[in-house]
């Protein structure tokens, strides 16, 4: 029985690990009481950015069609879009919904998120987080980045070609022909360091960052259901930020404020090298020295962020970041978020990134893959490459032998 469960887990498409970090915020957030302007400065006279901050509303990164260069919804548009969104979220969707597949099926094992356990934020007033370019859309990729993305997509696709997803012509197969013989490309290394899900689990490095508890990231992300908090604490000449990013994948960030240059080129970090200074009342942080292992929409070691943090009121903090990587995008782009202050007293932030400590799902996923190989070798199971345990368009009925 244990083996069967492990096999099921191994072929399940989403293994959820360490569900400990996704603190939920109420629909409107818990805001602290009003403060006088004097309290927006620290006792030593710097702008006071301290507290727990989060995005209280859900705003898409890119602007939906039909809004042109408009940064904000009209009241009517907002009401309609927010209602429509609530209606969709209540229904059967891939990101939520109260879905339950047939017991024993691959998809049933995978349905770890449901509306029974999630609360959703209201839509924000902004039509997109991106404010520049004015279209609200991510600038086009460079030719070099497009070519690399295509190579990677094709390689990932090749891992699916002998699955039922392709046999049934499901969308996740992306139009490639089904071939019962697994692709020889299964033995290739990915075109660049893997960060996402792939239909292969030969090694820990084949795992997605989420499965490996390596998901935390500085770059802005959409957070429909919470779990993206930061606590800022200041001292004269120093700023520290702790990020709680859901599923226990938080991280710590200490800003160097002494005007010294960035770390040497050879030192590369997951969260880069943050060097800050004050421009008037705005904390400006320049971030470079990222490791090629981290990935923000295709940008790796050349990612350059310029962040601007400005306290705009007792309960509001504006965050603006310009994202630049000339090897990936033809021009820099800028994202803006309005963060809301959360109650210090309630202290609803996890400063324990303990995804890793509770990560039983990841070894189970690898073990499941090894058991599927054993089954196949013993003539009691199908070829491991015929399972689709990554796209969510897998077969509905578990066909294994155990």
């Amino acid at each position, binding site marked *: 029985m244990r083996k069967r469960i492990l096999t099921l887990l191994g072929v399940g498409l989403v293994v959820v690990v360490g569900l400990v970090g996704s603190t939920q915020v109420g629909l409107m957030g818990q805001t602290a009481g009003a403060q006088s302007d004097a309290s927006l400065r620290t006792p030593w006279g710097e702008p006071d950015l301290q507290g727990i901050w989060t995005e209280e509303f859900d705003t898409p990164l890119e602007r939906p069609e039909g809004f042109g260069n408009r940064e904000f919804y009209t009241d009517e548009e907002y009401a309609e879009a927010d209602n429509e969104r609530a209606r969709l979220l209540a229904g059967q969707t891939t990101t939520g919904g109260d879905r339950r597949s047939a017991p024993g099926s691959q998809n049933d094992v995978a349905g770890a998120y449901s509306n029974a356990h999630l609360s959703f934020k209201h839509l924000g007033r902004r039509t997109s987080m991106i404010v520049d370019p004015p279209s609200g859309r991510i600038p086009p990729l460079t030719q070099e980045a497009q070519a690399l993305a295509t190579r990677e997509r094709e390689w990932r696709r090749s891992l699916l070609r002998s699955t039922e997803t392709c046999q049934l012509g499901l969308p996740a197969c992306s139009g490639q022909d089904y071939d019962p013989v697994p692709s020889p490309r299964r033995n290739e290394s990915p075109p660049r360091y893997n960060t996402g899900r792939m239909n292969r689990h030969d090694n820990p490095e084949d795992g997605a960052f989420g499965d490996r508890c390596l998901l935390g990231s500085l770059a802005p992300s959409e957070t429909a259901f919470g779990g993206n908090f930061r606590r800022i*604490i200041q001292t*004269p000449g120093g700023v520290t930020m702790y990020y709680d990013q859901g599923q226990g994948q938080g991280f710590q960030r200490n800003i160097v404020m002494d005007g010294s240059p960035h770390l040497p080129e050879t*030192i590369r970090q997951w969260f880069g090298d943050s060097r800050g200074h004050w421009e008037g009342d705005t904390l400006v942080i320049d971030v470079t020295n990222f490791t090629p292992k981290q990935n923000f929409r295709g940008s790796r070691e050349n990612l350059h962020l310029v962040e601007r943090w400005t306290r705009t009121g007792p309960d509001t903090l504006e965050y603006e970041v310009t994202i630049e990587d000339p090897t990936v995008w033809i021009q820099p782009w800028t994202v803006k978020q309005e963060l809301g202050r959360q109650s210090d007293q309630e202290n609803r932030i996890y400063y324990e990134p303990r995804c890793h400590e509770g990560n039983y799902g990841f070894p189970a996923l690898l073990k499941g893959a090894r058991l599927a190989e054993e089954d196949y070798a013993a003539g009691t199971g199908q070829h491991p490459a015929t399972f689709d345990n990554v796209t969510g368009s897998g077969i509905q009925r578990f066909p294994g032998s155990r």
Partner: protein
Amino acid sequence: MHNWIRGLFKGSMLGAVLAASAISAVISVSVTRTTGQATRPATVDGKPNLSGIWQANNEAHWDLEAHAARAGAVMQEGIYPYAYARVPAAPVVALGAAAGVPGSLGIVQGDGEIPYTQEAAAIKQENGDNWIDRDPELKCYLPGIPRATYMPYPFEITQSTNKIHMSYAFANAARTIHLDDVARPPDYTYMGHSVGRWEGDTLVVDVDYFNGKNWFDRAGNFHSEALRLEERFTPVTPDRIQYDVTIEDANVFTRPWRISMPLYRRVEPNMQLLEYRCTEFAEEFNYGHLRKEPLVTRWEGETMIVDITRKVPVGDALYDWYRK
């Protein structure tokens, strides 16, 4: 001017000017100290300013109690049957003299011994004997308090008025010390729940709400979820904090006991906290046996045996001559 300086420069006027400027340089450095952060005032809101990057410089991370140096972090029986004639075992043998354990007089106050109950003493012994299988540090689990303080990695204090934050290089761990009233966490924790107050110049921190999964060191010293700490951070000089902890856990110890050590400021001008994201580093350790083709190839049942490949020491001229 002191006589020794006068003597040094044999009374020359140039010498006296040089000596005076050297002294004033020393004085000005001690006033506008910079250690990887901007100029740091001596106080924050009237309290001693502990902000900056600190590190313990002792052997407590190996064993809180007094211990003699030994040849390897993991040992096995040698060719003589005496305990003191044991030799390094496979996990560290290829690392030679770099993998030994330095001796220490210990940091446990009083009689120097941790007052375990009888049952707990047996568990501690077992923990030590099975160090590489049991120590949460090797798996890159959150290190807990007080262990995070004296692991061989720096940590940074960011001192504000109502919060004091400590971030540790190891495992990206962090804790916030609340000087104000906050709700407890919704679950027991690895890093504890820290509530602080000032007693004169001493920062006193009560820590509890532990989940009991941490150790104190690499010797198997451990505690349960009933652990309660009273930490005392007392600045002695601008670059030294005296760190004292009273440790209480009725499940494991017969009475409260105390550890004590200095913490030193990392005074390098370019010092900053760098990442040690060991979740990734420990993947081979944690999951290597689940690879399709494990890098480790020998197994006995569920036990993996690490084969070590190394060359005998070469490159020494005398050794090469002798070998002929």
